[in-house]
């Protein structure tokens, strides 16, 4: 199967999934029992029928649910996600504003997580069942076990409040003004604007929340790395390589790790997708103006256009990440090409 064929097949499978996703998010948003009229108009206007009717028409609330769904789908195809009731901005604009903060955090966390996780995994596999293996595995388990909200509080308390060696909540020291928006990633935008001071500040604010999230990912990655490496290290060609007198470190890194990459890439991809959405707990403690916090506010204030918009976006990201992982498989696993 050629790459194009393979990719096309994957894409065709995605389309019904995307439609299903819009339907589920619509169902959830409509399951919210309260009438958005009461939460979104000042009480003095509730008795004014003209205003109430105008509001219902604006949000399409005067139509039957099925029709609302199709109106929504139609708007969606034109890239219109509706307007958030809470922020009164178009949902697409809100997402554009809050998503970069999350992407920046998730990326940093994933990079940290890969270094820590793959490192622990290799150590664990190479010195299997030795004390260092137990330590590395215990660290990995602790990483996936300590709730991020507890870890976040602990880190803030120790490294920020007590020792004062790390920056606190927020993306930037509040007295500094945001760099002009190009990508929305403060580290990138500050460099583009020629402001190294801003870059350092933004980078320092990424460290604590990045580490908190990284430990969780590292736990996942190191487990997979260990088992994958163990499998590969026991393969014949590894023994052949060793017997040919290749240095052990080269055997492990070049032959072992490379062939063990497949499951590792999968878990990295999936956890990155999850981070984009699941960082809500970390974001709320670190006052990080990201998409998770936006979603949380939307879901507690019955802001249905925002709930739908974000669910859709996140599910979409998940699908895309899956797709990318599949394509990577194509390169990493020759069996797919043959089938």
């Amino acid at each position: 199967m050629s790459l194009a064929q393979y990719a096309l097949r994957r894409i065709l499978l995605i389309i019904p999934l995307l439609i299903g996703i819009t339907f589920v998010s619509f169902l959830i948003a409509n399951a919210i029992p309260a009438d958005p009229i009461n939460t979104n108009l000042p009480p003095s206007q509730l008795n004014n029928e003209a205003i109430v009717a105008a509001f219902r028409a604006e949000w399409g609330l005067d139509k039957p649910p099925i029709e609302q769904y199709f109106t929504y789908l139609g708007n969606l195809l034109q890239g219109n996600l509706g307007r958030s009731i809470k922020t009164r901005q178009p949902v697409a604009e809100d997402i554009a504003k809050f998503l970069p903060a999350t992407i920046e955090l998730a990326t940093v966390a994933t990079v940290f997580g890969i270094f820590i996780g793959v490192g622990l995994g290799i150590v664990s596999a190479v010195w299997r069942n030795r004390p260092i293996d137990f330590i590395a595995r215990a660290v990995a388990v602790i990483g996936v076990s300590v709730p991020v909200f507890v870890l976040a509080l602990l880190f803030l308390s120790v490294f920020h409040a007590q020792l004062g060696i790390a920056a606190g909540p927020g993306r930037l020291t509040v007295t500094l003004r945001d760099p002009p928006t190009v990508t929305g990633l403060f580290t990138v935008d500050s460099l583009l604007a020629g402001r190294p001071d801003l870059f350092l500040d933004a980078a320092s604010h990424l460290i604590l929340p990045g580490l908190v999230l990284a430990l969780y990912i590292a736990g996942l990655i190191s487990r997979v790395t260990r088992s994958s490496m163990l499998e590969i290290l026991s393969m014949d060609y590894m023994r052949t390589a060793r017997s040919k007198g290749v240095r052990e470190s080269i055997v492990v890194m070049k032959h072992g790790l490379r062939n063990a990459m497949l499951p590792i890439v999968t878990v990295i991809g999936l956890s990155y997708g999850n981070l984009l959405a699941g960082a809500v707990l970390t974001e709320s403690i670190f006052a990080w103006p990201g998409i998770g916090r936006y979603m949380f506010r939307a879901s507690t204030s019955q802001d249905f256009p925002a709930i739908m918009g974000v669910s859709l976006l996140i599910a979409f990201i998940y699908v895309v990440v899956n797709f990318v992982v599949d394509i990577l498989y194509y390169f990493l696993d020759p069996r797919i090409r043959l089938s």
Partner: protein
Amino acid sequence: MKLLRFLAILLAIAMLATSFASAQEERVLVIGHAESTDSLDPARGYTQTTGVIHRALYETLVTFPDDSAAEILPMLATDWTISDDGLSYTFNLNPAAVFSDGSPVTAEDVVYSVNRLKNIQGSPSFLAAIIADVVADDADTVTFTLSDVSPAFLANLANTAFGITNSEVVTANGGSAAEDAATTDAALDFLNSNSAGSGPYILESWEPQVETVLVRNENYYGDAPYFDRVIITNIPEPATQKVALESGEIDLALDLTSDQIAPLEGNPNITIFRGPGNIVHFLLMNANPDIGGPMADPLVQRAVRMALDYPGYAALWGGVQPGSMMFYGNAYSFAPEQGVQRDLDGARALLAEAGYADGFDITLEYPTFTFQGVNMDTNAQKIQADLAEIGINVTLAPAELQVALESYRTGQEGFGYWFWGPDVLDPIDFLSFLPGGKVADERALWTPDVASEELNAMVAEARIATDPAAREELFTQLQAYTLENSPWAPFIQPDVQTALAADLQGYVWHPQWLLDVALLSRAE
């Protein structure tokens, strides 16, 4: 070695950067605050945050002293006269006053702003309900006609909702003051991102839930404020505000709890401001039996008042027990010792008399909200424990503020926990909680129809009485009445506590607008 070199380079860059930053020195004030802004349009926004912001952006005809509501002072109006029948008020405007675009503040602008507030039917529009008519006599004179005598009308006008907007600019951006303004006014988006007032600051930007930035109004006709730029940054978690204040990232933390302020006491970089507040936290017990259930019974209502551990709430937050729904400190208000005192046996006896000897189950609705450092969740849990003592089994039902407001505003709440900040700093504000008043009628369904004739008569008299001795007697009787018979259980009036950077000068707390940023400066 490589690492060392890298670090050295980073250090050099950082030093360079800081020297850059100091070259463009700008006086910046940073305020940490849990933002509650609903809109920055003065005719629409009506929260604590909008009070602070509108005070800096807009001016009113009359105002209060910097730190109290003890008297009425001129602001945009230099002086005024009141007709003998008390229905007509004429104001002379300050001819020097100009808007931020340099154009003069005229009587037409006043007429436009007042009509717009009245017709737009926003949250603060009720403040203008008593105004029958407002006309411009000439460019600098404006006359209000009221539909009824209102002893508190001037105090009303001092509210930031009566901030005067530049009618030309607002109209040009879709604004309307016509009777159908509720549906035709389209200036909301404009006023959410720009200002059109005559105050010492102009609005540079508002990013909801992130920050509000004010910059100095270069055309301000009064004394220029000290700070060039004021950033009100949204920090919803008080704990985060505290950390930010300690590290010097913010100058002023508006929402710290007393427990967070206590450990700051010895910190040489931080000053603590404390003073009596005017917010009353209370329980609402719906007077309609269909909605309130057992809570609609006046005997049960009294039992609830007698079950609350008043000193306990004061121990939690600092502050006092309000003697009635009128905040302690207002003219004629009851002192704490005049209020209801805890008496569990008495409360149990009342419940038994009402037919609930074994108690009952009830749900308490309230918003998940920390207001001026007072966490409503904590109080709700204490209410739950207090009422358990007399056999009332309370289930807590917290909800996000906007969601919780829904059943409160529509009168569908049987048993609720809310707080009240006076709309008008005059005893007349207390009438909101008596039949015929906004909160009593709409929220608790305690309407004139179900109230006693005796009470209705007293309320009618209190609404228009102007003689101080007569008012004192009426408001004393009314407060005493509510201790025995009313759907309210006020339980704590917390102190105001603010923590600020020690080099910040001129901080005062104001009962109406909380904070006037133009008064602040930094010691140099």
